[in-house]
C-alpha cells in the first residue's frame, strides 16, 4: 500500500519518549517509527497519552525523556514554530481557533507568506473548501460556526499549509460518514503525493479503513504495532484496554405515553434575519430517545440552544410536561430538570482552569448536593465529583485536578456524568460520546439506557450513525434547518440515513 515516493524512508522516529505531569505519567518509553508516505494511526483509551505525545512531537510540550528524529535528523522543538519549520502541521483535538476572527483570518494566520491575507488566500480557501465539500464561507466569523464547521476549518487550516507531515488528532469526531469518506479520499491522495500522516481516532472502523500501520498505546506506552489487515476493530479494542469488551445488550422499548418535551413550530433566525430553523415540531415522551441525524451546520447548534434557552426563538413554543417554558431562562430550565451535554466541551461545558469539583457545581449551582441553604456545599460537591469519577471511569488524579489537565475523552465523561446527576427529566445531548473511547462509549450508552428505563426523555444529536441507530427510539433528519425525514431505527440502514442527510433523492 505504501507509495513508492518515499517508501522505506523514516519520517519520524520517537525513541523512549517520557512525559510526566503532577500525579500522572502521561507517556513513558514510547517507541514509534513512522515511514514517510504512509498513514499511521494511533489508538488507545482515553487518557492513554496520544494527544500528549502529539503535542510533544509538535513542539507544544517538551518531553522529559527520549529523542525525536524527523527525516533522520534528531530535533528538539522549543515551540510549534520550530516544528512547522521542519514541515509539520497539526489539527488539535480541541480547536485552536479565534472566535472573533473570520475563517479566512484563522486559516491564513501564521501562513501568510503562502497566499497573502487577501483575495489570493480567499480564492485558495474557497478552492479547498469546494474540493472537500466543506461549504465554508471565508468571511464568516468563526464565532458563528458550530462544531462540525469548526472541525472543517481546522482541517482546512492544515491543508492550506501543505505540511509534509500532518498530525490529525481526532479530526473526525463530529463528521458524518460521507464527510469522513471525502476526507479520507483526500488523505490518501496526500499520502500518495508523499505526505506522511498521523491519524488519531476512537472510531476503530475508520482507523482500519485509512491506516497503513497502527500503533496501540496503553497507559502511556506503546504496547503493540499492528497492520490493519491483520486485525479487526474488536481485536484493536481489546489491545487498547487489555481485556475483552462487553458485548452490547439488546433492549425493549421503554417509550411511554407521557409527553415530556414538546416543540411546536419552532423558528430561529440569525442576526441578518436569515432562517436557521423553521417549522420544527416534535414530541419526546418519557422513556424515549429521539435522535437527530444530520450533517453538522444544518441547524443542530441552533436547535439545541433554542431548547436550552440560549437562543431567542422568533416563533414557536417549547413545552415541558405541559408547561410553556418558551420564555424561561436557561437556569430555570436546568433547575426544572433539563440536562445539557454541549457540543463543544471547551466552549460551553467546562471551566478549564478550575478544579473538577468546581466544575461539578457548574449548572447545578442552585441545587443539592452543591448547595446547602444559601451556601455552596463544597464538601458535597467534592463527594459528588468523586462519585462521577468512579461511576464514569474518569481517569484523573483527583477532584482537585484542573479540568484542563484531563484528556479530552475524560473531560467528556465528566460532563456526561455531571449532566446525568440529579436525575434530569430531559437530557439534551449533543455528541455525548465525542472523543470517548469504545469502552467508555458503551458505558455511557448503558447509563443513558438505564436512565431511559426510569423515564428519561433524551434529545440525541450525533454524527455517529451507529450511536443514533443503536440508542434512538425514533430518528429525525435535520437538513437546512428543517426536519425532513423520520426513520425507525429498527429498520433503517446507515446508507438510507446518510442519503437523507444530504438531501440526495430530493431537491439537491
Amino acid at each position, binding site marked *: 500500500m505504501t507509495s513508492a515516493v518515499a517508501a522505506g524512508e523514516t519520517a519520524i522516529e520517537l525513541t523512549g519518549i517520557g512525559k510526566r505531569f503532577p500525579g500522572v505519567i502521561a507517556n513513558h518509553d514510547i517507541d514509534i517509527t513512522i515511514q514517510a508516505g504512509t498513514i499511521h494511526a494511533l489508538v488507545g483509551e482515553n487518557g492513554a497519552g496520544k494527544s500528549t505525545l502529539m503535542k510533544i512531537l*509538535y513542539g507544544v*510540550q517538551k518531553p522529559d525523556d527520549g529523542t525525536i528524529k524527523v527525516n533522520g535528523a534528531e530535533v528538539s522543538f522549543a*515551540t*510549534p514554530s520550530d516544528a512547522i519549520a521542519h514541515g509539520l502541521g497539526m489539527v488539535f*483535538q480541541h480547536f485552536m481557533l*479565534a472566535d*472573533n476572527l473570520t475563517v479566512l483570518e484563522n486559516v*491564513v494566520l*501564521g501562513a501568510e507568506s503562502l497566499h497573502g491575507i487577501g483575495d489570493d488566500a480567499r480564492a485558495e480557501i474557497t478552492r479547498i473548501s469546494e474540493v472537500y465539500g466543506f461549504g465554508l464561507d471565508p468571511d464568516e466569523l468563526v464565532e458563528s460556526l458550530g462544531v462540525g464547521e469548526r472541525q472543517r476549518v481546522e482541517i482546512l487550516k492544515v491543508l492550506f499549509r501543505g505540511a509534509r507531515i500532518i498530525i490529525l488528532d481526532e479530526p473526525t469526531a463530529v463528521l458524518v460518514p460521507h464527510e469522513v469518506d471525502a476526507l479520507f479520499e483526500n488523505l490518501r491522495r496526500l499520502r500518495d503525493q508523499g505526505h506522511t500522516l498521523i491519524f488519531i481516532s476512537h472510531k476503530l472502523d475508520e482507523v482500519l479503513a485509512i491506516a497503513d500501520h497502527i500503533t496501540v498505546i496503553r497507559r502511556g506506552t506503546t504496547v503493540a504495532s499492528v497492520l490493519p489487515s491483520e486485525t479487526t476493530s474488536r481485536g484493536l479494542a481489546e489491545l487498547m484496554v487489555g481485556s475483552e469488551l462487553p458485548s452490547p445488550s439488546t433492549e425493549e422499548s421503554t417509550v411511554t405515553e407521557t409527553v415530556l418535551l414538546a416543540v411546536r413550530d419552532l423558528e430561529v433566525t440569525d442576526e441578518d434575519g436569515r432562517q436557521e430553523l423553521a417549522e420544527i415540531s416534535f414530541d419526546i415522551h418519557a422513556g424515549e430517545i429521539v435522535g437527530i441525524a444530520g450533517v453538522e451546520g444544518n441547524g443542530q447548534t441552533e436547535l439545541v440552544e433554542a431548547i436550552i434557552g440560549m437562543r431567542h426563538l422568533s416563533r414557536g413554543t417549547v413545552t415541558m410536561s405541559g408547561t410553556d417554558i418558551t420564555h424561561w431562562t436557561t437556569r430555570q430550565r436546568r433547575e426544572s430538570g433539563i440536562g445539557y451535554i454541549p457540543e463543544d466541551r471547551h466552549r460551553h461545558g467546562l471551566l478549564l482552569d478550575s478544579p473538577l469539583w468546581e466544575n461539578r457545581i457548574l449548572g447545578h449551582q442552585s441545587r443539592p448536593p452543591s448547595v446547602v441553604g444559601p451556601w455552596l456545599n463544597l464538601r458535597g460537591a467534592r463527594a459528588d465529583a468523586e462519585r462521577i469519577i468512579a461511576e464514569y471511569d474518569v481517569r484523573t488524579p483527583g477532584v482537585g485536578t484542573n479540568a484542563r489537565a484531563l484528556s479530552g475523552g475524560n473531560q467528556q465523561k465528566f460532563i456526561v456524568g455531571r449532566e446525568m446527576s440529579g436525575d434530569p427529566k430531559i437530557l439534551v445531548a449533543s455528541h455525548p460520546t465525542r472523543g470517548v473511547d469504545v469502552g467508555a462509549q458503551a458505558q455511557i450508552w448503558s447509563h443513558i439506557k438505564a436512565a431511559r428505563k426510569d423515564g428519561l426523555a433524551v434529545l440525541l444529536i450525533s454524527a455517529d450513525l451507529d450511536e443514533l441507530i443503536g440508542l434512538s427510539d425514533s430518528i429525525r433528519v435535520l437538513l437546512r434547518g428543517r426536519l425532513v425525514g423520520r426513520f425507525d431505527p429498527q429498520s433503517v440502514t446507515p446508507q438510507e440515513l446518510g442519503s437523507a442527510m444530504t438531501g440526495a433523492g430530493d431537491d439537491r
Partner: protein
Amino acid sequence: MLAFIAGGFVLLSAVRVISGADEITSSGTLAVTLTATMPIALAGLGGLWAERAGVVNIGLEGMMIMGTLGAGYVTYHHGVLAGVLGAIAFGMIGGALHALATVIFGVDHIVSGVAINIIAAGIAGFLAEAWFTDLPGGGPTQSPSLADPGKINLSFLSEPASNLEDKHWFLVSDLASVVEMFTKNLSVLTLLGLALIVGSFFLLWRTRFGLRLRSCGEAPEAAESVGINVYRYKFTAVMISGGLAGLGGAYLALVSTSGFQVGQTQGRGYIGLAAMIFGNWRPTGMFMGSGLFGYTQALPFRDGTHSVHALLLVVAGLLVAVAVIQWLKGSRRNAIISVVLGAVFLTWYLTTDIVPADFTKMAPYVTTMLVLAFAAQRLRMPAADGRIYRKGSSG
C-alpha cells in the same frame, strides 16, 4: 458609521439655527475641541494597540505623564523635534515596564498598570523638581515655556471658510467651520496624530503583522499553535502603546499648553481608555469617542451657559433618533423610554434660557454618559484581553 457622523452633524447644525447658540459649531469651538480630542485619542490609540494584543493597559495615564515629562525636559535642551521623540521614548519606557511585568512575568495587568501610574506620577514630581527648579522660567512643578512644534495655515482655504461661517447659514456655515478647523493653526502634532490613527487601522487590519498581533489578543493558544511568537507580539504592542501615550503627553505639554506641568494629564489616560471601549476597540470608533469627550470638554468654555443649554436640545434630538431606531428594531420598551427622556430634555430646553454656570462643567459628562448608555452598541472586546498567557499552553 459615516451616516451617524453626518446625522449628528446635521442635528447640531439644526439646533444651532433654532437656538441661535452659534458657538456650538463655531470654528473656535471646533478648534478647541480638536486640541482637547487629540491627547485623548492618542492615549486611546495606545490602549487599542495593547488591548488588541491582549494586554489591558490601564498604565496609559502613567505613560502619558512620562511623555509630558520627556517632552518638557528634552524639548528645553534639544529642541522640539527631539522633544517629541523624547516623549515617545519616555512613554515607551513605561510601556516596556508594563510589558515586562505582564507578558514576561505574568503579573496581573491591572496591578502592573496601576503601579506604573503611581510610580510615574512620583517620578515626574521628583524629576521635575530636580530638573526644572533652577531653570529660568521654570519651577519645581513646571518647566520653562517651550517651543511650539509648528502650525499649518492654509489661509487660501481658511479665509473664505471664515467668511462663510459668519453668514450663519444652515449646514453650509457649519461645514465651513470644519474646513477652518483643519486649515487654520492646525498643529503639526495633530496631523501626526491623525495620520497615526489612520495608519494604525491599516497596520492592524490590513497587514500580516496586524493579523498576528490581533490573534494574540483573541486566541493566544491558537496563535502559538501556528507558530507565532506570542510574547514578541505582545511586547511590541505594549511598547507601541506606551510610545503613543507618550506622544499624547507631548501633545499636552507642547500644543495644549506651552510647557510641562505636574499633574497636567488630569486622567486623560483613563478617558482615552473609555473612548477606546466606546469605540469598540476600533480606531474610528475610538476617535469618535475621543471627539465626543473633547467636544463636551470644550463647550463650557465657549459661551457655556448658552451653548450647553443648546446641547439640551441636541440630546433631546438624539434621544428621539434612538427611539426611532429602537422602534424599528422592534424593541418597544427601549423606544418608549427614549422618547420619554427626550421629552424631559425638550421641556427643560423650552422652559429655560440658560443652564446654571455650575452645571455647564457637569453637563459634558452627563451628555457623554447618556450617549454611552444609549449608543447600545454590541461591544466586543478581544477575547483574551487581560488574560495572562503562559507560553506552552497551546493544545
